[in-house]
């Protein structure tokens, strides 16, 4: 984030956002108490039901007797429903001084092609992903609010491994030192696009995303850094680009936001738009197959209450096989320690 784009929040907004950033620490005693209870009621995770819904019912029934657990659910629900509102209110306090800066960075080499006639897919339309109040496009500066306040001031402070360091690490994984033309599928506000540009400074970068507000923020980020990104309001699974256009096709933490059939279509689209000899790298959340039954339940419950309707189906997929089915060769998949996150699939389009 360019320093000029980083809002100087007023006291109410700043303190409220800090409050959210410290939330996890504030809940630590509760969580420790619940963890002790979980260890007591689940001595052997393998004995939990195979079916995820039955497993959740078993856990809810057992943990429902714990006052500390019920409190974590109530407090967690407050966070889920309020983080977007707090961030939006914090922005509104500085809107007057920030708006000219945001408008300024909508000019420059990075461009946005809006698609007002786009038929939004049912998997996305009306869904409040991450339980963000009003979804991605409700507020005229939702992309900015998400990037500068939610991501940079909240998520980045507490996310294990660091969201920006992880993006830079993944961006450096593709096998070549140089790529002429890169497509970032589901680029959102441009955090990973930035990591790509910093890793491959001479690359021409294209980004697509369904959310106009997020790619408008990516445009500001690009322009604030003097980059010339070409951003389009289009689905990653149907980019509209000619066959064999790009040298590298990427996505970062998109796949768990789309259904299984769309994920398969996305890999096929990546294969189609890559030039022969091109590379693919897709990163997403920890695979359920890499988790024991208890950890899987934790992830699944987090998705259920965290506005993630496609997480379970997505995290259950064998992404490496999907990549092979799409035509990629030399496919590798790796879950990065210590969190088994991100999960990174790479492949190559034959010459």
């Amino acid at each position, binding site marked *: 984030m360019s320093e000029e784009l980083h809002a100087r929040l007023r006291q109410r907004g700043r303190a409220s956002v800090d409050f959210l950033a410290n939330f996890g620490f*504030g*809940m630590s005693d509760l969580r420790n108490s619940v963890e002790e209870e979980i260890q007591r009621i689940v001595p052997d995770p393998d004995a939990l039901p195979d079916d995820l819904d039955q497993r959740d019912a078993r856990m809810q029934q057992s943990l429902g007797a714990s006052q500390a657990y019920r409190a974590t659910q*109530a407090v967690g629900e407050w966070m889920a429903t309020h983080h977007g509102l707090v961030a939006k209110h914090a922005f509104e306090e500085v809107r007057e001084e920030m708006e000219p800066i945001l408008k300024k960075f909508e000019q420059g080499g990075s461009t946005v092609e809006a698609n007002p006639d786009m038929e939004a897919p049912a998997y996305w339309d009306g869904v409040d992903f991450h339980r963000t109040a009003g979804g991605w496009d409700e507020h005229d500066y939702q992309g900015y609010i998400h990037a500068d306040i939610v991501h940079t001031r909240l998520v980045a402070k507490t996310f294990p491994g660091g969201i920006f360091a992880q993006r830079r690490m993944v961006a450096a994984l593709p096998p070549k030192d140089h790529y002429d033309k890169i497509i970032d599928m589901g680029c959102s506000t441009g955090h990973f696009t930035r990591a790509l540009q910093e890793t491959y400074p001479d690359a021409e970068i294209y980004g697509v995303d369904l959310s106009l507000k997020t790619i408008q923020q990516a445009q500001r980020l690009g322009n604030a850094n003097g980059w010339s990104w070409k951003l389009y309001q289009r689905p990653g699974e149907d980019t509209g680009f000619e066959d064999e256009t790009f040298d590298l096709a990427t996505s970062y933490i998109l796949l768990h936001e789309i259904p299984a059939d769309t994920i398969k279509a996305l890999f096929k689209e990546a294969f189609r738009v890559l030039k022969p000899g091109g590379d693919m790298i897709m990163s997403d959340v920890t695979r359920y197959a890499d988790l024991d039954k208890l950890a899987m339940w934790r992830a699944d419950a987090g998705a259920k209450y965290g506005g993630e309707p496609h997480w379970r189906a997505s995290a259950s997929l064998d992404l490496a096989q999907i990549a092979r089915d799409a035509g990629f060769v030399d496919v590798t998949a790796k879950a990065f320690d210590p969190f088994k996150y991100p999960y990174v699939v790479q492949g190559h389009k034959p010459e």
Partner: protein
Amino acid sequence: MSADPKSYNKPQRNMLLETDVNGLAQAVVTLTQEVWVLNDRQMVTEAVLAKHGIDIAEEVDTFTPDEALQSKLDERSRAIMQRVFNSLGGISSDE
């Protein structure tokens, strides 16, 4: 898709029970005390400064804490949250 993804916007969640109402009352009162202490301090601070001819309202609004102060603020906010959340969860706090 097996279910309407919009159903995830407002998921059904088992939270507090009627038996939690006493803990909830303890938490609300604890929170009210904390909020009042802060309100009192803020108003007294501004009044004392105004007595000395200093209007700090705008400077407070635009103030960015340095690292040392931010660390203190974080510590205090975590402590307040723990007191309130622990009351709700039936966990005794040291304070």
